[in-house]
């Protein structure tokens, strides 16, 4: 089983019901699918980070991991 822990940063914590979601998969999956299953809109996400690397939504997850997602960043 692949266990994915999705950690929401910044205002995403306020926008979605939980700041941390756990999802389980029986086979490799993409981040696009994870977002879909978690109900997270990709329109809200600017950076996706796994470990020390930035990845894109088509990244294929093959083993249990933590994914941090960061919201849009504007000026101010």
């Amino acid at each position: 089983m692949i266990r994915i822990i999705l950690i929401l940063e910044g205002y995403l914590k306020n926008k979605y019901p939980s700041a941390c979601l756990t999802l389980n998969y029986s086979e490799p999956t993409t981040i696009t699918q994870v977002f879909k299953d978690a109900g997270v809109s990709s329109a809200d996400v600017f950076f996706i980070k796994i470990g020390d690397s930035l990845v894109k939504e088509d990244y294929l997850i093959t083993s249990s991991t933590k994914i941090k997602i960061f919201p849009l960043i504007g000026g101010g």
Partner: protein
Amino acid sequence: MAFGYTQRILHVDLASKKCWIENPPERFYRTYWGGRALALYYMLKEMKPRTDPFSPDNLLIFAPSVITGTPAPAVPRYTICAKSPLTGAEGESEAGGWWGPELKKAGFDAIIVRGVSSNPVYIWIKDGAVEIREAHHLWGKDTGEVQKLIREELADEQIRVVQIGIAGENLVRFANIVNELKHFNGRNGLGAVMGSKRLKAIAVRGTKPINIFDKRKISQLSREIARRVMENPLSRDLREFGTPAVLRGFYESGCLPAYNWTTGYFPEGEKLTAETYNKTILKKTTGCYSCPIRCKRVAEVKEDNLTVDPTYGGPEYETIVAFGSICGIDDLKYVAKANELCNKWGIDTISAGMTIAFAMQCYQEGVLNKEDMGGIELTFGNKEAVLILIEKIAKREGWGDLLAEGSYLASQKIGKGSERFVYQVKGQEIPMHDPRIKTGVGLSYALADYGPDHMKAPHDPFFKDQNSVGIKELSGLGILEPISSTDLGEKKVTLFKILDIYWTLLNILGVCLFGYVPRSLGTMDELLEIIRSTTGWKTTWLELMELGERSINMSRIFNLREGFTTKEDSLPEVFFSNFSGGPLDGKGAIDREQFQQALRLRYQLMGWDPDTGVPNWSKLWELGLDWLIKELE
């Protein structure tokens, strides 16, 4: 006469100590409205080309918007313009707070200051009456003390004071202008222009309500927007964490400007985050006139070896980076102290941090040594040195005198290759958003008439996805298709032409970007209705966007008169190189040729010559600026 205006523009000649009031006709207001557009009208009409920024002939103009001071939420901002002593271009800076609304209630749509006073003075305005008062007793004093003294002297605690600190008095080229000690017309060194005129402050008190066409409608809209803002996740985040909320995303992604822009990787970034801020130095939050968001921070430190006075607010995102990672410092308490000193003495924190970081890199690279720096070991991370240098800059003491010129002019004087360590456009230090991850911001940095400004630029991520708020909410401007944040093709250039005009318009209208789309929940329809309900004019987005475009062309012509060319529409070299270190290592470089092509296309889209960037006469006719055609000859 239109509603929303007082139909009174105050002119002050500090040389003769004379004041007079101009009553422009409605057509003037409907053409130039307020803010930068109104200011540029006077700068182009009355200032000769190549006017010295510190000469009596430089006009210093304070201009709120037509909706500033109404009960509408998040529209408290006002503009200050003059020729900038930092860039030599059109100088402009907007601020929120309380002073703009108070000026409107005191009976004026704008103040135009000219001349140089023989002695320090301040201007006192109460309900339409104007007095120029002696300010010898205020000269040389900290901003907090000055505000207190003025309120005591005039026996009214509700007076709103806009003022300069000692940096403005000493003509520091990045001195700012502050209202209520926490809200800044920060950039372009306009505080030095005010100081050159020996004008310490403008105190205002207004008790007259603004004449609004449909008060009931405005109140209804205000309640509705405020309710949604309170529920909106982004607004809640701004209230809880303020602008520092964005720092974590940059730091964890490896694009937090650090060590004078030599890297985006700052592993100690956790110590600078909004969460750390709230745990360690946050005293309370505050806000601006008629705004439910309350994003401003107030910081306090009470330690044996370090205190930070909450009177002067707290550092915003830009300041945290400018005195934090850019200088290699990971101690928020010292960042807050640097912020306090800048606010007490009236210095722009972005330019100050960047100029000190420039000197640090010069030191690290051997261009400057300890002896040059008067015994200061100016290595990255030396937080005590930063505090010392801020004071020296404000007082123009020792090396502070050179650094008070800003990093660009200082490097010209230092030479020895120090120009390599300057990160500027048009002579102004760049803000803390890296264009390599937001190329539209890069275009805006390069093209901004008054130098790079994070508040001038729309930010690309709001347009990255079909469901992005920018696409959903700004479709009324013809923005229908998402574009990647790092794209720099024709579609991005076209999108950012529209957005730059829209953003410029928001500044003219005194709109806080945190209150309306695409950043928050006030919609385009609601903003239009606020303007209509204030003025009684059946205005449209066509008219409003033309206003934004008109002002861009006016500032373009102002700068052309000053000798600026397309050469100055540029970006620092670092952005044409990949990131170094961290998650983005080896990625991100902007393609130089594509960037140049983007600029040419942008000129064409604006109706400007693609080679020279000069507006075509037909564009000037279209915008009602035919009176400026002679400036192009």
